[in-house]
Structure formats: structure tokens, C-alpha cells
């Protein structure tokens, strides 16, 4: 994929960083082949475990740095679930905490130079979004029975409009996993591709200082975006959960 152009323009393709490669050798990729995706996902999980398990092992009254980060993360997600999904949503707090920590660490690890962003692949985010979608739908039907369908039948709207609104609500309900997964993957992919495009411009002497400044600025933005996208993914899960627990508008 890497090709030299004559003017010294793009020396590598900005999308090269998203290629899934086997970790050892060059063989074909089967479902059991350890790839760079496997590696960086495992690393993300290791980081979460290190932060939450090893960090809180001391259980100090005055927490050290790593313990206070773990406590802050826990408190942040706990408050988010409580505020958005309500008190009865707290039963599902572990699930949302798991999602949030995994996404936040995948995103941050992807920011390391030469690393691989697992969440930039729609295959990864689609599995998480479909899991959220199925979980929430099942919870909705188990908790409310057929009453869950009143989510689509807005009783506060005029009767004439209700069938049309119901159609729109049904469509928007089924688009949820699509937008949920593509939002995260798209943001990660676009941000990293932009960094790589500016990195390629750094090879052109005339604009190299400008492009290095731009990389720095965009990198800072990407750190922010990485966190915000994990937050948005978690908070939307809470919103969907709230809809499932209380479908009446």
C-alpha cells in the first residue's frame, strides 16, 4: 500500500493503520489467529484490570494516585447511570461500567504512536452496540411485557399523528445500534486518519513546521474526543436503558 510519489507527497496511505494483520508471520487470518486487534484488545483489558483491581487493592483511606483515578472513574460512571437511567437502572451499572472502561482504554491506547485502535473498526463497535440493543430490548419486554410497545405509541400526541409518529419511532429505534456503533468507529477512524494525513504532509519541507503544529493540536483534540466518545457511548446506553425501564413518555 505504501507508495512513493514523485513530489514527495503522501508516502503512506492514511488508512494503512487500520489494516488487521496477524501478530506472528504473514499467514491467512482465521477466527483463531492472534492479530493486532487481539493484542490491543487484550492490552486494554489488562489496563482496566490493572487500574481497577490492583489500584484499589490497598483500600487506603487516603487514596494514592492510581486509587483515586479508579475511584473517580467509578464515581463518574455511577453518577451518570443514576442521573440518566434512574435509581432502578443502577442494577445494570456493572455492564455500563465495563463498556465505558473498555472503550476509554481502547481509545486511549489507540492514541499511542504505532498502535492500533480497536474501536476504529465497525466490527468491534457493532458487536458492543448490538449487545446493548438486544439487552435493552429484552429488559424492556421482561420488565414491562407488551407495555414496552407504548414507547412507540406516544399518548401525548394528537390521535391523527400517532401512527405517523409510531412509524418514525420504530425506525429510529432500529437505527439505534447503527448510529451507536458508527458514531464511535467513525469518530475514531476519522480522527486517526486526519493525524496520519498531517503526518504525511510533514515530509514536505515547506509546510513541515505547520503540519507538526497541526498534528500536536489535533492530537490534543483526539485525546478529548477519545474520552467524550466513550462517555457518549455509555450515556446513550443509559438513555436506552431508561427507555426500556420506563417506556411511558
Amino acid at each position, binding site marked *: 500500500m505504501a507508495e512513493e510519489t514523485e513530489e514527495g507527497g503522501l508516502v503512506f496511505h492514511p488508512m494503512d493503520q487500520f489494516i488487521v494483520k496477524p501478530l506472528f508471520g504473514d499467514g491467512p487470518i482465521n477466527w483463531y489467529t492472534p492479530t493486532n486487534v487481539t493484542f490491543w484488545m487484550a492490552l486494554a483489558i489488562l489496563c482496566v484490570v490493572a487500574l481497577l483491581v490492583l489500584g484499589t487493592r490497598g483500600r487506603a483511606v487516603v487514596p494514592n494516585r492510581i486509587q483515586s483515578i479508579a475511584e473517580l472513574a467509578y464515581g463518574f460512571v455511577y453518577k*451518570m447511570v443514576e*442521573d*440518566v437511567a434512574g435509581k432502578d437502572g443502577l442494577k445494570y451499572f456493572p455492564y455500563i461500567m465495563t463498556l465505558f472502561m473498555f472503550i476509554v482504554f481502547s481509545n486511549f491506547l489507540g492514541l499511542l504512536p504505532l498502535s492500533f485502535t480497536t474501536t476504529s473498526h465497525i466490527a468491534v463497535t457493532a458487536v458492543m452496540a448490538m449487545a446493548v440493543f438486544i439487552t435493552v430490548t429484552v429488559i424492556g419486554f421482561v420488565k414491562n411485557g407488551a407495555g414496552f410497545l407504548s414507547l412507540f405509541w406516544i399518548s401525548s400526541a394528537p390521535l391523527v399523528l400517532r401512527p405517523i409518529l409510531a412509524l418514525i419511532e420504530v425506525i429510529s429505534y432500529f437505527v439505534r445500534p447503527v*448510529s451507536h456503533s*458508527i*458514531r464511535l468507529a*467513525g*469518530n475514531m477512524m*476519522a480522527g486517526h486518519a486526519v493525524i496520519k494525513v498531517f503526518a504525511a504532509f510533514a515530509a514536505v519541507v515547506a509546510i513541515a513546521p505547520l503540519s507538526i503544529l497541526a498534528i500536536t493540536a489535533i492530537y490534543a483534540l483526539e485525546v478529548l474526543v477519545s474520552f*467524550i466518545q466513550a*462517555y*457518549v457511548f455509555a*450515556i*446513550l446506553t443509559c*438513555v436506552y436503558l431508561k427507555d426500556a425501564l420506563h417506556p411511558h413518555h
Partner: protein
Amino acid sequence: MEGDVVQMGAYIGAGLACTGMGGAAVGVGHVVGNFLSGALRNPSAAGGQTATMFIGIAFSEALGIFSFLVALLLMFAV
């Protein structure tokens, strides 16, 4: 030759699809701007509403991401 025309169409379409991102930019700016103007009128109530702001941003941003997806599909999948 025919393949070239198809590819040209795909590339032009990908470029046109990117105009949708401008709409998402307007939407996100509108959400945050209105949040800010509301927050400056009543700063004590602003803290509790940041989550709502982020949900609004996420919903309007999703449509921009859809146009990005269409562009990617035209570039790599068609």
C-alpha cells in the same frame, strides 16, 4: 473505460457526501451555543444539564457520521 466512469462517479459522490458533515457541524454548534446561552442566564442549573447537552450533540453528530460512512462506502465498497 466504463469502469473509470463508475469510479469517477463514486469519487464525486464521496466528495458530495462530505457536505453532509457541514450540516452536522451546524447542528452541534447550535446545540452547544444554545446550551451556553442558557447556561449563562442561569449558571446554577447548567451543571445538571451537561449530560443532556452531550446526548444532543451525539444525536446531531450521528447524521454527520452517516454522511462520512456514505463517503467511505463509495470510496471502498462500491
